[in-house]
């Protein structure tokens, strides 16, 4: 935001502070869980940061082979770093890929080293992982340099989606979208990648409703956008998804390949993909530490709740989730400018005063998180195939975005729920955005809702309901956040902590657990 507009909702500062402290109270036990557990994907991310890439002939990545071998030999309670670098030092060859191949063939026996061996292994692991972190640091500086040199587009950043399944089709589409005005390109992942417990390798040309997130695809797309950024004289950002079972690895690859934004929600995988809650929170904390270091802006997924739950009745669950996402993000080291907290324009257009309600909700998010960019999502649930009505609805969505200073505007398509966007759909959608921002982009300067009016009161009401829900969540009798997730508080999905996908990849840390990546990211060796 260039100028901090004065408060329109006149939120009570004490209530806001109370809401934040409740979010902290709700989230703290989960952070404790995350600090005392590890997952197969966190351990694989450690190896990726140390430079282990590639896959065997069956396409199983070497990081998976290695972590599985370590787990079979000596368990993951101490992390992979100690056993792997102990084996490397004993092996003499010092090459991670060779070690991975040997491990897959069963010719290496991993152990948890002790005493001097442990000290040496830890030191070697820290040096190796440090190289990956240094590359992430270089990428961050490179982004800052390019943004300075090429220019940063004004907010809101126009966010467009590409999803062909084929990275070599995605590239020209993404470049075309950037030329048409996109500031952010999101490459939607192939359906189902979130539930793969490995990251596919290489450039991919086959995906369903999206393109696989792979390190090579990341590299190809970032290079293509660098070209088009230079041509256009503005830095075009690239987005992907740090979600699903491989969240920590994908976050690491994003840092290594200079992606700029990542979808990364604290609860989305639990609620919408039935991924085990503990797995998600452990993976999420690590991935957010990487994002913090890499200067990546995260986008959270509160919009999704409103696609299943009612956007008016459940408005406060969005606020609660934003507060939780903020707490988890800051705990992991992210700063306000990196918090693309999500919300959406999903109120049924048949509801009387639906636009006033949308304005109230959008303003509440804006004023509760004044320094966060906020990711504003277009209508999807009430896009019915009536493309003409949908175009109007998208116009109102853009108007609400303009009036409430949203930072990242996902461009709504009138053919939502009909086809994956055509070239013309994207062009029409961008015309819609341009018209609204040209006509009313500075309307927020004149717009001040009546202080006792409908919008202000609705904003206060949603905040009050959010505080009440948080109070229930932290009530010891209710069992805390995990219990709330278990009984369907968010998005109406019930996800108990002892179920869900990826649970078998969660391991409780032993007292001597070592993770050089976490140590480096937290800046304090434990």
């Amino acid at each position, binding site marked *: 935001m260039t100028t901090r507009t004065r408060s329109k909702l006149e939120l009570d500062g004490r209530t806001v502070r109370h809401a934040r402290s409740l979010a902290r109270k709700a989230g703290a036990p989960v952070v404790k869980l995350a600090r005392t557990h590890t997952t197969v994907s966190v351990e694989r991310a450690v190896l990726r940061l140390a430079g282990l890439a590639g896959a065997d002939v069956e396409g199983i990545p070497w990081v998976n082979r290695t972590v599985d071998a370590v787990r079979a030999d000596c368990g993951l309670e101490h992390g992979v770093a100690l056993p792997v670098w102990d084996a490397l030092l004993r092996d003499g060859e010092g090459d991670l890929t060779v070690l991975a191949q040997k491990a897959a063939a069963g010719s290496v026996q991993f152990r948890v080293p002790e005493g001097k061996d442990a000290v040496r292994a830890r030191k070697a692991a820290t040096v190796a992982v440090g190289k990956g972190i240094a590359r992430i640091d270089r990428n961050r500086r490179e982004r800052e340099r390019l943004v300075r040199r090429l220019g940063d587009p004004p907010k809101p950043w126009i966010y467009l989606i590409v999803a062909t*399944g084929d990275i070599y089709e995605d590239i020209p589409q993404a470049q075309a979208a950037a030329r*048409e005005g996109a500031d952010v390109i999101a490459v939607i992942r192939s*359906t189902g990648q979130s*539930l793969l417990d490995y990251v596919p390798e290489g450039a991919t040309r086959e995906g*369903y409703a999206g393109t696989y997130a792979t390190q090579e695809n990341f590299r190809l797309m970032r290079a293509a956008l660098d070209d088009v950024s230079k041509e256009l004289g503005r830095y075009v950002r690239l987005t992907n998804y740090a979600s699903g079972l491989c969240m920590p690895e994908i976050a690491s690859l994003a840092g290594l390949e200079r992606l700029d934004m990542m979808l990364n929600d604290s609860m989305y995988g639990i609620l*919408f*993909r039935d991924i085990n809650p503990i797995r998600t929170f452990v993976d999420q904390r690590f991935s957010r530490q990487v994002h913090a270091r890499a200067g990546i802006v995260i986008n959270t997924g509160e919009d999704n709740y409103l696609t*299943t739950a009612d956007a008016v009745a459940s408005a406060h669950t969005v606020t609660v989730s934003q507060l939780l996402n903020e707490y988890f993000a800051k705990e992991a080291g992210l700063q306000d400018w990196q918090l693309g907290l999500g919300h959406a324009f999903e109120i049924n257009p048949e509801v009387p005063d639906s636009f006033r309600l949308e304005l109230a909700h959008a303003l509440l998010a804006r004023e509760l998180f004044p320094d966060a960019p906020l990711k504003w999502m277009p209508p999807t649930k009430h896009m019915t*195939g009536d493309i003409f009505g949908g175009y109007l609805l998208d116009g109102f969505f853009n108007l609400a975005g303009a009036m409430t200073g949203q930072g990242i505007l996902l461009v709504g398509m009138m053919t939502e729920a009909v086809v994956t966007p055509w070239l013309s759909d994207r*062009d029409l959608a961008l015309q819609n955005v341009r018209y609204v921002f040209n006509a009313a982009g500075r309307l927020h300067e004149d717009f001040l809702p009546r202080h006792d009016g409908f919008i202000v009161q609705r904003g206060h009401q949603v905040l009050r309901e959010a505080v009440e829900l948080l109070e229930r969540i932290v009530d010891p009798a209710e069992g805390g956040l995990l219990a709330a997730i278990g009984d369907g508080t968010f998005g109406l999905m019930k996800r108990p902590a002892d179920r869900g996908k990826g649970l078998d990849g969660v391991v409780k840390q032993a007292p001597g657990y070592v993770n050089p990546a976490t140590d480096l990211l937290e800046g304090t060796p434990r």
Partner: protein
Amino acid sequence: MTGAGRIVRPYGDTTGDGMVQLSFTLPLPHDKRAEGAAAQLANKMGMDPAMVVHAKAMGPDFTFFVVYGPVHHLVDPTKVNIVEREYPLLTAKEVNLTIKRALRRPLVVVGACIGSDAHTVGIDAILNMKGFAGEKGLEYYSEVKVVNMGAQVLVPELVERSRAEKADAVLVSQVVTQRDAHLHNTREMSAAFNEAYRSGTRPLLVVGGPRFDETMTGPLGVDRIFGRGTTPGEVASYLVHALAGGRAT
């Protein structure tokens, strides 16, 4: 003025004027020739005369058109193929009562998203308590036992679970349609059930999704296809009609 039984044409503002609107993109730079090409296409599609009312360049290589004009085709509403609902819509109470009387046990429904499809929106709308369009899902029905297996279920797992639960009906939803995934997955599923069960004993197979053609049950090997906007009540009424012999009396 009902349409059935008489020949009709599209209606702009006068009966029989045949007016339609059309929009499309041609991979041509915007100039006079491109507009002529758009008129030619509309002409070949039966619009005569074709009025190119809007043409806009989209980048250097593409042009978007809006075309208006009359078509001369005649439409005979009596020769339209549709799937008419052949069963009455029942309330939840009636559904429960019918199951009680006809089956004397709960009706077992196993649901899943199969293949790579991770979009459980459809199956959840029908099965979850929350339901869809103001109607509660099948979980709400006291006489229906729902087993929702969630997303990305493998067909063999679905068959196995259906056997274990003694499913009366299997509900599968498919949202992703890229490369006709929804059709491949459905055929794979019906083939697996036909193989695993003795003929005539397999559960009722029902698929749903926004892009299915409801008349395709035969080629896909399923008993019923539900398209977009289907509500839980319609599905429940159908299941009772097909499995419990229809209406409570």
